[in-house]
């Protein structure tokens, strides 16, 4: 049986989560590997959440926010973008592939794009294979 990755996703309430809802109301099918957590703004997403997701066994983390300039809170998505870059640098240093964390902009109307994004991300992570972090946690001694 092929490896089925688990992807934890953080979506901002106003654009991305609404976009995901739209994918639903439009009945667009996408990979079931994603598990979504709603935050009010991508600016709420901080490294702790990403690290926690990996330590709990996530193979990938997908963060979505409003398109640049469209943030419901003006600039939250930029704050997220800044953290995203540092998170990637950090996890890379910790021996985790950068690509396991991905940030994308999804507007309230981009249900289709969201579905495609989930499928792409799922494939990307499937190719990377299972994340080793959880195993490290278990064998840590």
């Amino acid at each position: 049986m092929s490896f089925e990755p688990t992807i934890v996703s953080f979506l901002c309430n106003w654009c991305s989560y609404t976009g995901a809802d739209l994918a639903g109301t439009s009945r667009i099918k996408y990979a079931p590997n994603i598990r979504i957590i709603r935050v009010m703004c991508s600016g709420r997403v901080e490294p702790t959440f990403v690290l926690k997701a990996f330590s709990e066994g996530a193979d990938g983390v997908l963060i979505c926010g409003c398109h640049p300039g469209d943030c419901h809170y003006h600039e939250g998505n930029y704050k997220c973008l800044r953290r995203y870059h540092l998170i990637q640098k950090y996890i890379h240093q910790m021996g985790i592939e950068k690509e396991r964390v991905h940030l994308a902009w999804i507007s309230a109307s981009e249900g289709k794009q969201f579905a495609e994004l989930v499928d792409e991300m799922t494939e990307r992570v499937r190719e990377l294979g299972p994340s080793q972090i959880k195993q490290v946690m278990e064998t840590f001694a």
Partner: protein
Amino acid sequence: MEEPRVGIYVCWCGTNIAKMVDVEAVSEEIGKIPNVVVARNYKYMCSDPGQDLIINDIKENNLNRVVVAACSPRMHELTFRKALENAGLNPYLFEMANIREQVAWVHADKEVATVKAKALISAAINRVLYHEPLDTRAVDVNPATLVIGGGMAGLSAALEIADSGKKVFLVERTERLGGNLVHVDQTFPYLHSGQGILSPQVRRAVNHDNIGLFLETEIDDIFGYVGNFEARLKDKKGKEIELKMGNIIVATGLKTFDPSVIPEYNYGKLPNVITSVEFEQMLKAGNIMTREGKEPKNIALIHCVGSRHEDYHEYCSRTCCVTALKYANQIRSAIPGANIFDLYTDMRAFGKGCEEFYAQTSRSKNTLFLMFAKGDLPKVSKAPVGEDIDMLITMNEMLSGDEIEVPADLVILMVGVEAREDAKDVAHHVGVSMCGNEFFIEKHPKLDPVATTTDGVYVVGSCVGPKDIPDTVSQAKAAAARVLATIAKGAVVVELTTAVVNEDICCGCQTCIKVCPYTAVSFDEEKGVSTVNEILCKGCGTCGSACPTGAIRSRHFTDQQILSQIEGLMAMEV
């Protein structure tokens, strides 16, 4: 904290969820999770009996936490929070798991979908364990209202409110009121004069004691929150005007599509290809003629110009079809002998009296309806020299199946409508979102079509999407009614899902100050700590995520809640 007693309710949503998620199995298994006291599944949780289930359980099993697994929280979170309130439980001790939009509707394998549903629910349970009761706060409502846009929508809203004796500031960027209707000669389906409808309204607005009118004025900035907005306006001379209001109605309208981008129609190249807007001018002036000043013998109307086409706009502009019918009638009465060719794809004549109008028009003589396939546009070209007509239109006529040539001296393009390019700025000032085609998004397309996700801000008329006059006016008056209701209440309730500073931890590094887009965080020199203004704070949580000490908590989105939710997501892995 008291021992958590959680109630779980899995909704079938009729068959919507039930056909893709094994709701029985889910509620059974979830019932085994520690702290879960009751786990039920029911056809429609949002229905009254559904909500009563929750209310009774809260009372009988004294639940202190509730999780509903159903549709998107954006749909029914408030519904269920109310239910908790009715049962005497703080509404924030509730969490929703979205197993419809995020599971049932997007996945195809029932087994997998069921597993995922469990994961989402266990995450919701983990989260709700750490929910805390939150207060709400009532703030006074400033009785004045700002209406942005002086078109039919803005006018109607402004007058409705002003007539009820409340102050209105009506802001219009151009030098006159009326918006697009100004250009319209007659309106469908009853051929009332546009002016006849508009001028009395404009006159009343201009002279109304309760309406402060600001022409040639634009919004410079808006800040504040429901009940207490502050707006800074700039007029043409650059003069700044500061206003305070409790509610805002956005009625910025739309503009017509520019057809010169469509090669097939040669608009701008062939002088006798004109837009419906230009044709309205002719009708108003009362003389229909070609550029050469001749009376046209053959007149063609082409529908869906810029509408219902993936290269331009995919949506239907709603008013063009019936407008075309209106033209057919007006042309026939102006030039009885003229041949009228109506080139359409689908004739969309919905709305009161419109279908009848279509029937009546099609029965009349020398009006020929020709159908082209969506996307297969007719081509307008200059007629060869020698012919005594100006232009030829070649098209694949669907009903006959023939490729035909249509003669034309005058071609009228029924141009569609689109959002204004400056809609973005407005959206930003008032904090409303826009959909893909740049029209504003309503709070809920069905249940709350004039409100927005920003409390106290309403969107009406064509800035939400193409509309005819009756729909526009009814929206405007609906919004007016909503505004008047809040003014009547005198106070609105604001959620306190805001950031809060733990002063025992805050070290005064001041990282958070510049992070806040609403200047809600300030530094208390005396105490040497940051403080959050709960009314200015909109609860985005960015400051909490920027705080290096963890002193700032984002209420209802705390680290503990989210981290616990993540654990829950993974707990159900198989």
